[in-house]
């Protein structure tokens, strides 16, 4: 996709802005990697798991009348993995250590999610225009 370098740039910016973020990836809602900035994990597997978690989260939100999916935060013993909506077609998944500032992560990742939504939406619109 044409937006890929811009999405990668956004992921790098997010990593630079929040301390203790160890990886970030953007994926389509159905689990395909758009761009990733991760050293320690395998992005395809995480994108596929993100899509699965997204499906369950959306069902849970629907069943409890919480509306469209916005974000999901998982805290493990060694840190956090968080997924943020990036428009209707994409999601942003972020890995962070246990010392990360979650307040700041939410702030920055929501902003990044919105930017990725614009980039992906724009690229899809252009692709459809050319088709």
């Amino acid at each position, binding site marked *: 996709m044409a937006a890929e370098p811009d999405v990668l740039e956004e992921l790098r910016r997010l990593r630079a802005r929040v*301390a203790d973020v160890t990886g970030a990836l953007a994926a389509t809602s159905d689990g395909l990697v758009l761009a990733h900035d991760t050293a320690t994990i395998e992005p395809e597997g995480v994108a596929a798991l993100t899509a699965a978690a997204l499906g369950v989260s959306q069902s849970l939100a629907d069943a409890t009348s919480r509306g469209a999916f916005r974000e999901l935060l998982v805290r493990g013993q060694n840190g956090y993995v968080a997924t943020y909506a990036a428009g209707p077609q994409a999601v942003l998944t972020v890995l962070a250590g246990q010392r990360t*500032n*979650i*307040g*700041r*992560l*939410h*702030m920055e990742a929501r902003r990044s999610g919105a930017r990725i939504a614009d980039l992906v939406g724009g690229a899809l619109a252009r692709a459809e225009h050319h088709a």
Partner: protein
Amino acid sequence: MANTQTALKEAMTTIEGSLGVALVDYSSGMALGTVGGGKELDLTVAAAGNTDVVRAKVRTMEQLGLKDGIEDILITLDSQYHLIRLLKGRDSQGLFLYLALDKNRANLAMARHQLRKIEGDLEV
């Protein structure tokens, strides 16, 4: 004893010149409660940002080998005071009170005194 929201409201109403007040968990950077603030002072942003301030100071003291506690941190702007008070109670470790004051209306000594008293009454 006062719960979080009551204590924050008390700070906002009794401390002259208060613009906003928040109780923040600096292990996560999230606010447990906020009162005041608004468009000009987003207390969620302030909670996350000042968490970095507190962590930086704690780390600096460790590196300096200072075996001491932080009572409060004062940041003086052109038109405001920002006061960060670390909570010391057994159940409130890892929390701080954040208070933004209008410099023209506030009495800093009085504000510190009142904030200390509000901390004493606060039950998290």
